């Protein structure tokens, strides 16, 4: 055995050289780390320099334009908001549900275990699938519905309206020709009214009218009955379907008050219309029989009385009605308007409430959102899994020890404590969805759009697509516009990231 006093083996490496190499490496490290920062600075800097001049309120509030100076982000901004909101509503429950199953419902049998690990592996792999592949799937499955359901944008339209007393009327436009337009009313359902405990006047039928200018085709239907009626089409006049809850013969009585307007917006209890003559007009929704006011573009209100009354809004109480006209309110005895019937009408060819769906989905907000959902679902699942895994085991054991079932344990113990983590992951997933362009390019393509979506079947523009379009225009001034769009996009994303970080920090404070 040799001791340490024995001369050392090997040749000494000079210490100064080792120190020098170490120093050089540190310098290299610092340099490379700062290259990343530098890249970010250059990237954001070059974009801010280009885009700052275009960035003002008008930019956010204008629709796209062929002139760089007028071009704005409004359609794309709202399109993105619609897309991402819809996407999150779809992805969050699905993702969290899958994560709960994977983390909390440990499989017992051999096959269950295999299925479990397959799903687990599968989700990891889905996270690596290029987003454009999801775009193709979205195009085939959502936009076209495998081509099984016909053409996405034909004129077949579902018409559906709920009257204020809960009666649901729905119909389908089956033919739209100059000789005749045919509507099948597939059902008048009074069941909802009865379920809500509202009275369904016995013997009273629903009056339906196909209204075209002065011509009306009248029909009455009993609840649950399917009817079909047609009218000769004059394309110069809008075609409306009107509903009234009244005996058919009362329909014939002349109307006294007729309010006609274009839908502008709706707030709780209030419908704002644009009247060509009177300008802005507010109508309380209590008088509007079509409850889903998003759908409503044209309104007519008939008031039976001997007197001619015009007004901006009308509300009907138990004993009296209040008519507001030119800022002055006038109270009318309810008895005077005994024959009053209000009619909500729905112009054919127009969309329904914001959750109205028809198949195939076409290049709609819903199709885009579903496609984005596929893209972010793995992200949501994985981050939720991590959040759930971070919940201490003792909490679960405590809950089980108190006699909780598995779902009670999950819903009352695990989910609340994992919620901040899940939310953080969801926000980050959402910022991914906001920035995705490739799948949307496949699903919707770029569209010049000068409106904001009104329901999930609307066509849409999205911020990344708009930026892509601006960036690929040849006129250099559009580079500035694209850069301004990028600033907005990145600002939104930074906002989301900041929110995620805040939630994370708050959560960490709580657990300490």
């Amino acid at each position, binding site marked *: 055995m040799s001791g340490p006093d024995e001369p050392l083996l090997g040749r000494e490496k000079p210490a100064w050289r080792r120190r020098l190499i170490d120093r050089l490496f540190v310098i290299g490290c610092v340099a490379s780390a700062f290259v990343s920062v530098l890249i970010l600075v250059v990237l954001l800097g070059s974009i801010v320099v280009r885009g700052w001049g275009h960035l003002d309120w008008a930019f956010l509030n204008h629709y796209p334009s062929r002139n760089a100076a007028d071009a704005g982000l409004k359609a794309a901004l709202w399109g993105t908001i619609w897309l991402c909101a819809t996407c999150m509503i779809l992805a969050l429950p699905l993702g969290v549900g899958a994560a709960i199953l994977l983390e909390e419902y440990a499989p017992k049998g051999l096959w269950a275990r295999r299925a479990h690990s397959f799903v687990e592996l599968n989700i990891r792999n889905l996270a690596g699938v290029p987003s454009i592949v999801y775009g193709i799937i979205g195009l085939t499955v959502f936009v076209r519905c495998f081509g099984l359901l016909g053409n996405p944008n034909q*004129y077949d339209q579902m018409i559906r309206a709920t009257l204020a007393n809960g009666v649901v009327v729905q119909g389908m436009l089956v033919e*739209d020709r100059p000789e005749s337009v045919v509507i099948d009313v597939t059902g008048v359902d009074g069941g909802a009214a009865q379920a809500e405990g509202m009275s369904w006047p016995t013997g009273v039928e629903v009056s339906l009218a196909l209204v075209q200018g002065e011509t009306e085709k009248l029909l009455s239907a009993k609840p649950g009955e399917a009817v079909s009626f047609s009218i000769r089409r004059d*394309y110069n006049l809008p075609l409306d379907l009107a509903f009234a809850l009244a005996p058919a013969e009362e329909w014939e009585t002349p109307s006294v008050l007729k309010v006609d307007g*274009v839908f502008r917006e709706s707030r709780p209890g209030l419908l704002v219309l644009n009247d060509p003559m009177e300008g802005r007009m507010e109508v309380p929704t209590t008088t509007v029989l079509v409850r889903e006011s998003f759908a409503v573009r044209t309104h007519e209100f008939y008031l039976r009385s001997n007197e001619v009354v015009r007004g901006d809004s009308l509300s009907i109480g138990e004993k009296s009605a209040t008519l507001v006209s030119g800022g002055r309110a006038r109270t009318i005895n309810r008895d005077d308007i005994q024959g009053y019937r209000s009619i909500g009408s729905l112009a054919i060819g*127009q969309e329904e409430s914001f959750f109205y769906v028809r198949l195939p989905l076409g290049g709609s907000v819903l199709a885009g959102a579903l496609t984005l959902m596929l893209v972010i679902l793995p992200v949501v699942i994985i981050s939720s899994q991590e959040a759930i895994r971070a919940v201490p085991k003792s909490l679960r054991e405590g809950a089980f020890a108190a006699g909780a079932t598995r779902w009670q344990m999950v819903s009352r113990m695990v989910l609340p404590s994992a919620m901040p983590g899940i939310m953080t992951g969801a926000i980050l997933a959402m910022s991914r969805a906001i920035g995705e362009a490739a799948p949307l390019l496949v699903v919707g393509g*770029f*569209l*010049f759009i000068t409106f904001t979506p009104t329901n999930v079947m609307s*066509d849409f523009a999205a911020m990344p697509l708009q930026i892509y379009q601006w960036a690929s225009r*040849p006129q250099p001034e559009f580079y500035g516009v694209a850069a301004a769009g990028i600033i907005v996009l990145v600002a939104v994303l930074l906002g989301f990231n900041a929110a995620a970080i805040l939630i994370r920090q708050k959560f960490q404070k709580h657990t300490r």
Partner: protein
Amino acid sequence: MNTSLTGALSLASISLLAAMTVAQAPSSLTGTVKADGSSTVYPITEAVAEEFKKIVPGVNVTVGVSGTGGGFKRFCAGETDISNASRPIKKEESEKAASSNVEFIEVPIAYDGLSIVVNPKNMWVNHLTLDEVKKIWTDGTSVKTWRDVRAEWPDKPIRIFSPGTDSGTFDYFKEVVVGSKGSIRGDMSVSEDDNVLVKGVTGDENAIGFFGCAYYFENKDALKIVPIDAGKGAIAPTHETIETGTYAPFSRPLFIYVNRKAVERPEVKAFVGFYLQSAGKLAEEVGYVKLPSEVYSRAARNIAARRTGTQFTDDQGQPLHGPLADLYQ
């Protein structure tokens, strides 16, 4: 004298149409108008849609870009109301439309010249003859470098940028250069987006490309135009040479095709009426050449009479050639 009278008359009839369609509705008119198709026509339709929105805010107009062929595919399936086209509809396309019960009204809206451009740093090209153009683009060509085109030119590789095969621009170019039976060489960089082509040519000294004149007019400083000698001396595309037809054979009319059923919808009718009223002005603004005013009034009359079908094929479905003003009645 005679022409000015017709002009005045046609103007009157356009404004009448516009008054009929636009004034009838203004604020209360609602609905959606879907347009798709040629990237060449896109700037005009985009401009019209933008201006229309200012007058009739209730109507939502969407304009897509998927090439003339792609646009017709959707149009003939009844997916869109209006199809932008940089060439007349083809026989098989109108058959497809007929089979899915789609009738259409043909509306010419502007002239476009095809421009062949090179990089401004390219010092050697001052013009090309039609034969040289054919030599460069015909499929199976031996042209790999500029010297292969003309012996005194440098031995540098020639890089070609072309619009996508779905674009009317490509079809038109192909028709002129190799005829309908021939085919264009395959080793070009292809993009449906003309902007990509402009940028491709501006970034490469050895590049040559072709696209609609609008993109050349918009990027005059970044590109060098190649005058074409088709036997009457080298002629560059300008508003005059295109409108008078001297820039032959590389000038052509642009169209929109309107679904007949859709025209019955007041918002579509209003939009098309407004389109005709403003097409000339807006086409010039975005770099095209306006049509003679009687063509616009004939189009307005055709819409009012719901005259369907194309006027650019004969009874056998063979394409007709000639000045627009003669063909389009």
